[in-house]
């Protein structure tokens, strides 16, 4: 999004402590509006290109290039979001929510019935870490549902 002085939002934001210059550059580029296009050649799996062609016929998208750009942006945005969170925690470690808090938030966003049992989610977050390395919030919710079923 461009602002009235011609600078992009990202370029005006300074640098977060803990955020490297290359990550800063990535964020600025993602925030940049317009900027023209560039021609490039890339090798696509044939089946994926053909699937894109069918999707275009179905009116789901305008072009293979559009799908490619959307996919690339989505991956980069996900990485940028994760990196921004990590940079924030580097500066403010006490703001980092724990796995149980994130799992509860996930359940609430999904309107999952287990969301009304935060203690069960807390127990599940503690338990799942004993059986799986680096569990996700969804792993916790599956574990919590198992605990609930076992108790029923």
């Amino acid at each position, binding site marked *: 999004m461009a*602002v009235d002085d011609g600078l992009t939002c990202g370029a005006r934001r300074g640098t977060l402590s803990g955020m490297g210059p290359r990550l800063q550059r990535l964020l600025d580029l993602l925030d940049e509006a317009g900027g023209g296009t560039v021609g490039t050649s890339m090798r696509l799996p044939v089946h994926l290109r053909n699937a894109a062609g069918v999707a275009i016929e179905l009116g789901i998208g305008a072009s293979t290039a559009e799908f490619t750009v959307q996919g690339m942006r*989505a991956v980069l945005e996900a990485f940028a*979001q*994760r990196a921004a969170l990590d940079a924030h925690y580097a500066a403010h470690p006490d703001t980092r*929510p724990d796995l149980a808090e*994130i799992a509860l*938030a996930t359940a609430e966003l999904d309107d999952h019935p287990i969301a009304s049992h935060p203690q069960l989610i807390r127990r599940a977050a503690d338990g799942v870490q004993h059986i799986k390395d680096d569990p996700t919030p969804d792993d916790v919710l599956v574990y919590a549902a198992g605990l609930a079923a076992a108790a029923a």
Partner: protein
Amino acid sequence: MHRKHRRALAFVEATAARNLRRAGTVRLVVPTAVRVEAGWDRRAAGADAINRLRVDDAPLGSRAADLAVPVRVDLGVSVTDAALAAAVATAPEPHAVITSDAQDLRAIADHVGTSTTVVIL
């Protein structure tokens, strides 16, 4: 540390986890009217951290304003809440709204006729 700050970050973490697993699964959106009410100026130096969380604006443009007017008239809600209703009405479902005022938001979701999960911050 403010409890709401950590809880808000838990919601961002929840979306980040989904997006890392499958890119583009969840979008974080803030209606521009809500930004005005919250005093969130993206150009301000103090907005550095929140700006980087990849929260998109839902602008109150011409179409959104037309959608917001009947919500404000029929429900008597604030302009900000009516703008939120317009954002919800135009966003692909499913969506969840994170708010401190669940009652108004549930009435708005019913009025707009969308499947909206209302989450208390």
